């Protein structure tokens, strides 16, 4: 198998326009087989649009997208059978029973894994005779995940699946996902705003901003790129344009917390040249790093 054929998702200069809004802006993305790939970005960054284009539910305005080697716009039923989808609404036919729905899904997917289904559903208090409309949101999420994983998908798209779930349901959901991922050849695309979840499950972090890919790296690598500093200025702080790699600044108790990108230990000397009296480097987590990264343009919308 050559290098290109190992890609499960590949977009090339992919753009999608809704009237005056450009939801995807010449997005070129290559996702290799295996692992959990977290897709993050602020609201309107184009995450859900990307998933819809990948599934052929939306057509691109320009560019192309492929999933499992097939053009997204002409996905065959067989390929669709290899792609699982769980989204935030956990849309399931409310008029059916759990057993009825399971039977339907079982008949549709030839690679159905009864064991996986049972084990995932075991994390939730769901009875076969229950109607879908009687399930709580968390139970529906669990059932939805169980059904998606039992298909034996090669690609699993999770679009904010834990949105609105309580702590217990979220925990059960993530454990199910982590458990089911073990030893499977399933590539997971996981979209979420919950960085703690991403920190737990993601092997790779894809950051979208205004429809463009702005970063793609393992979470720890990305964390290393973003550094935080506490600075005590002797005089008024310099203009942010003067600070290399500037992402975010916040005043706390007369001091300034700075978040910067791609700066090493030598950055403290730079700050001192700019007028810093005292400089201290802060340890930061993924949540802070991503937030700082995504909000940089909020500080300067015209940048």
């Amino acid at each position, binding site marked *: 198998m050559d290098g290109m054929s190992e890609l499960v998702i590949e977009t090339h200069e992919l753009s999608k*326009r809704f009237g005056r809004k450009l939801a995807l802006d010449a997005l070129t993305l290559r996702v290799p087989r295996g692992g959990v790939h977290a897709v993050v970005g602020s609201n309107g960054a184009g995450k859900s649009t990307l998933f819809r284009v990948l599934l052929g*539910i939306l057509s691109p305005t320009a560019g192309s997208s492929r999933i499992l080697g097939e053009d997204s716009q002409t996905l065959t039923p067989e390929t669709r059978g290899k792609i699982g989808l769980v989204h935030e609404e956990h849309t399931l036919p409310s008029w059916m029973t759990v057993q009825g729905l399971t039977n339907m899904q079982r008949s549709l997917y030839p690679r159905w894994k009864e064991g996986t289904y049972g084990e995932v559903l075991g994390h939730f208090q769901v009875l076969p005779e229950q109607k879908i409309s009687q399930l709580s949101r968390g139970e529906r999420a669990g059932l939805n995940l169980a059904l998606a994983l039992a298909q034996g998908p090669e690609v699993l798209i999770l679009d904010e699946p834990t949105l609105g779930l309580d702590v217990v349901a979220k925990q059960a959901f993530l454990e199910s996902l982590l458990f089911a991922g073990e030893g499977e050849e399933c590539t997971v695309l996981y979209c979420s705003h919950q960085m703690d979840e991403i920190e737990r499950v993601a092997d790779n972090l894809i950051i979208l901003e205004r429809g463009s890919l702005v970063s793609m790296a*393992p979470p720890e690598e990305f964390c290393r790129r973003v550094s935080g500093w506490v600075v005590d200025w002797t005089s008024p702080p310099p203009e942010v344009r003067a600070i290399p790699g500037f992402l975010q600044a916040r005043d706390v108790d007369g001091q300034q917390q700075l978040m910067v990108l791609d700066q090493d230990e030598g950055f403290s000397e730079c700050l001192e040249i700019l007028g810093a009296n005292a400089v201290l480097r802060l340890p930061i987590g993924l949540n802070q790093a991503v937030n700082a990264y995504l909000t940089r343009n909020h500080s300067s919308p015209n940048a």
Partner: protein
Amino acid sequence: MWHLIKSELLRFRRLGFGFAVAHLLVLRAVSGFGDFFAPSAAKIGLGLLTYALTGLILGLYQIGSHKKIHRWAYLIHRPLAPRKIFLALCTAAGMWLFLVLSLPQLLITLYLDGMTPLWVDLRQYALIPFLFGTAFSFYLVGCFITLSRSRGALLVAFLPYFFLTRDAVGLWVFLPQLVVLAWLAYLAASAFKPDLSTPLRRPLAVAASAFPTQYALFWVLVAASAVGYQSLVIFQEEGWTGYATHAWDTHFAEGSYMNAQYQHGIEALDHGLRGEDTQRSVYLRKQIELAEILETSPWLAKFPSRGQLMFADGSRSLIDEDKDIVWTFSHDRMLFHGRDQGSGKAIGWLGLDGRIASRPFPEVPYVVGNRFLLTQQRIYRFDPRREQVDLRFEVGPGEQLYGGFEQEASMLTALTDKAFYFFDPKDLRDESGPMAPTAAFALPGEIRNLSGVEVAELLDGYLVSFLFGTRSEAGYGPARQIMAELRVDGSHEVVAERVLGQGWPAFNRYRGFIFSPFLEWVHGTAWSWIGPDRANRVGFGEIASRELPASVLLGALSVAGLSALLTAFVGRSRDLTPKARGAWVLAAFCLGLPAFLSLFLVTGKREGVELPASRPRLLRQGWRMA
């Protein structure tokens, strides 16, 4: 796929069973009225509207509820081809429509057939699949409207009109319906695709959606321009206040066909003689002022056909009020079936030889006024006292009746496509056989172009006015009024002939042709083929040989050229390939203004990306994991 069908069946089970039971109860209640199989036009309309709306609402709701973005992803993203998914939804909907609409109808029909004295013909069973087809066609319309991105999809609701108003016979009644069903199914299946935000692209699918849209637009244009022009005329003549009070009878110029149409009785006869100043015409004018006038027209444009659905029946029952018996014609037996209205019991059959031998009618008769029965070539008279049906008049081979036995004072007449007959009313009392006409006047024009006949009884004969011109407005025949005198000795002569002008200006009369000659032709031939009444049938030869004013031809050509030019210009901003744009320009030239207008409804707007030249990005190139 079966599981998906089952899922959709389960989805509507409560509503469906409730509706079915309610429908059954309503039908049972309605079947208690005597006219269950011979309902009035209003009841037919209400029934059809109910079934059509049921189908339409089911289509709108079923697909509409799946269309929300997450639900759509759940429905469409599965290892089934979209067409199979759509087939599953349609199958479930079809099963529900059968259960909710057809099964109650079938149960009630079986009940009436087997457990009541009512006679049920085979065609009454055929009504059940026809109504199912009607409901299902509107279900497909609902699906297409919901699936389509354009509001113009509403115009496909025009397609069922092709079979709803038709009255073809026997199994042929289903042919137009099946064609429309296949058309709608193809359209809806084509629109059922993963990406609902894009318009149809396959040429056949685009053509299948464009044609009904254009046809509907054609009628919108024809109707709107008529209303617009007439409103303008009213405004010019009487101002704003005229809209409530304007009377058209004074609008048209004297000597025009439209003006002549508004003349009745003495006025009509006087209109025909206007301009004549011979001694005879002066004499005739004096006579008609005192004369009794008989007015008639070719009112019987369509005879019932054996096996036709009940929509086209008109009248098929004879009511014997003295004995309280209703005689209802059976298409299966070609006899009248009698039922005592008091006891509800069946009392036997009535045929050409009365109740004894019950010889079947050769054709389905049209019942006129509880007394006369008309077939294409015969007029029978029903005598309730003797319970006999007597043949009273028969026309020659190749001749067809268009009206029969109109009586006024001592005049008794019948109208055929060949002649206008006079009879002696006293002969009606005679029960001995067919009556012989006392006089016959060969029709001085084509029956389909005949608007009306007025007859004045003179001292020494009759003065007859024939007003021709019903088809003249469309350019298919002359407009003229012919006055003929028929004397007691049987001789007759034309005493006056007025060539009439047209009431409306040419651009108003030929506006359909100007908007789209092709769609006007399609309309004419389609209606003629599917089975309209005799008067409205237009042959291809007639359409082709119709003489049109040069201004109309120039107008149609200009509209076609302008439509093509506008399509070429607007087409640049639509989401079309160069080849498709060329096809649209050609279509606009051939189909005229409706084709240009449909461009906005059938195609999507072209959307470019148009990225700014420089855009701040930290990273734009693709990434790969190490």
